């Protein structure tokens, strides 16, 4: 069946992201689109503004190492139990990226402001943190409704696209996101919408037909394009579908430690389009 929203591959999704675009991506374990990430590297994307919601790991390290990122906005870059983000560290040392260090709820709140299309949002906490010193775009004010109550304002984040991976779309382009409501906020805050890779398109399903599935659905109106990418989160895991590929993370850690090793990794696992399932 042919659909206007459905593209042929993750590479076609990546071609929709122009150089300089601001893209919002979820944490590695929450539906990161790693095949689309590899496609962005293959197409030689440059100067992306990567908004990590609210943090990232391998996806950011790959894009940074491959020179795709101009600005990195995140609360953390971490592989958790699964290694060290050497390319992120190297880029910081070389001054190769502009870093906007944040805290998780600041990214969530700024995206929620973007999703309402209001210019800014106040947030508790943060005052007295050195994060604020390095974020001249954040401004402290006095609460206009109460005395002696300083509070921080954050400008809204409106990405061009949200980019993520999900289990499936239905025949109308509605996408199942389960309880991962941050994915909906990311898509709704984006001016263009979401570019989503999915494991499969289910022509037998109408996600909006029942309350049980509709509650976990991102409606198609927020979906700019989707494409099928089987095991498109690999080597990260995808919720109930497949676990993280730990041996591959170890291999990545061995190679990405040096620039030469990282180049070999790209050659072997990124430049050659391969089926992750093999």
């Amino acid at each position: 069946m042919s659909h206007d929203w459905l593209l042929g591959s993750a590479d076609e999704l990546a071609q929709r992201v122009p150089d300089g675009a601001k893209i919002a991506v979820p944490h590695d374990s929450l539906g990161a689109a790693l095949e689309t990430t590899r496609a962005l590297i293959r197409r030689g994307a440059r100067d992306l503004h990567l908004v990590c919601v609210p943090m990232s790991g391998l996806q950011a390290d790959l894009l940074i190492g491959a020179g795709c990122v101009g600005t990195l906005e995140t609360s953390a870059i971490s592989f958790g139990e699964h290694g060290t983000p050497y390319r992120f560290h190297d880029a910081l040392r070389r001054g190769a990226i502009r870093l906007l260090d944040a805290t998780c709820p600041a990214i969530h709140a700024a995206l929620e402001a973007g999703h309402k299309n209001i210019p800014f949002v106040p947030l508790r906490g943060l005052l007295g943190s050195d994060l604020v010193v390095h974020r001249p775009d954040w401004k402290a004010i006095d609460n206009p409704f109460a005395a002696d109550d300083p509070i921080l304002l954050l400008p809204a984040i409106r990405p061009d696209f949200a980019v993520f991976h999900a289990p499936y779309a239905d025949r109308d382009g509605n996408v199942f996101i389960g309880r991962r409501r941050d994915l909906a906020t990311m898509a709704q805050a984006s001016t263009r919408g979401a570019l989503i890779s999915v494991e499969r398109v289910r022509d037998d399903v109408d996600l909006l037909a029942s309350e049980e599935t509709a509650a976990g659905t991102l409606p198609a109106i927020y979906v700019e394009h989707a494409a099928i990418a089987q095991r498109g989160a690999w080597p990260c895991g995808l919720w109930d579908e497949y676990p993280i590929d730990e041996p591959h993370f170890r291999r990545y850690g061995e190679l990405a430690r040096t620039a030469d090793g990282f180049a070999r990794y790209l050659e072997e696992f990124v430049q050659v389009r391969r089926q992750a399932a093999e």
Partner: protein
Amino acid sequence: MSVSRQELLIFTIARLLKDCRSVAVGASSPIPGAGALLARHWAAGETPSRRLFLTILGSSRLNSMTSGGVELFDMAAQGRIDAFFLGGGQIDGEANINLVGAGGAYPQTAVRWPGSFGSAYLYYLVPRVILFREEHTRRVMVPKVDFISAPGPRADGVYRPGGPIGLLTNLCWFSFDKQRRRFRLETVHPGHSLEEVQDNTGFAFDIAPGAVATPAPDAETLAVLRGPIARLIGEAYPRFVQQVFPDAA
């Protein structure tokens, strides 16, 4: 019966969580996660049985939330999270914590850590923040942090219903006095000494009169820990369970 370092820490954390209704545990925190599970086990054994809502970030089953990652922070702001855990590459005597990096000039620090995560918010809002850092050395416990990810409590007029209750390490448990803005040594773990704590701490601290040894779990508690708790925590932290509780892995 011999008690491992991890088991003592898990038991200590569970004691610190007594009476909590809701506890959240961050990513990469197997010991706090196991401590919270033990506290939940105790709550379930009360008469009548009491619920303890537990969310371990990164876990599907040990998760009381359905509205995405933002829900933890909104719940904290609503006053619905009683306890949370934070650590740091550096922690100083005023309970400032640094999760960003050390040395050099930011952002080109000589050492870079992951980043501040949710610390610059939760530290202000969660009433029972337990600072937890296993490594207790002068490179971690410093006179003054190089970067303040989240500031310790101070009289600056900022809305701050939350803050640290203390600091647990491989050597000891310090409480934190929010008025005096100082740590106070309360208990030293078995096998360690006051001198060892002093030698390895880069900031000044008070010492509780009659500071004692940190209590160790009894045989019944150890059996619970090594059986059902170890199996539950394995979903979120399989590597940890393989190392610390190989029989349950």
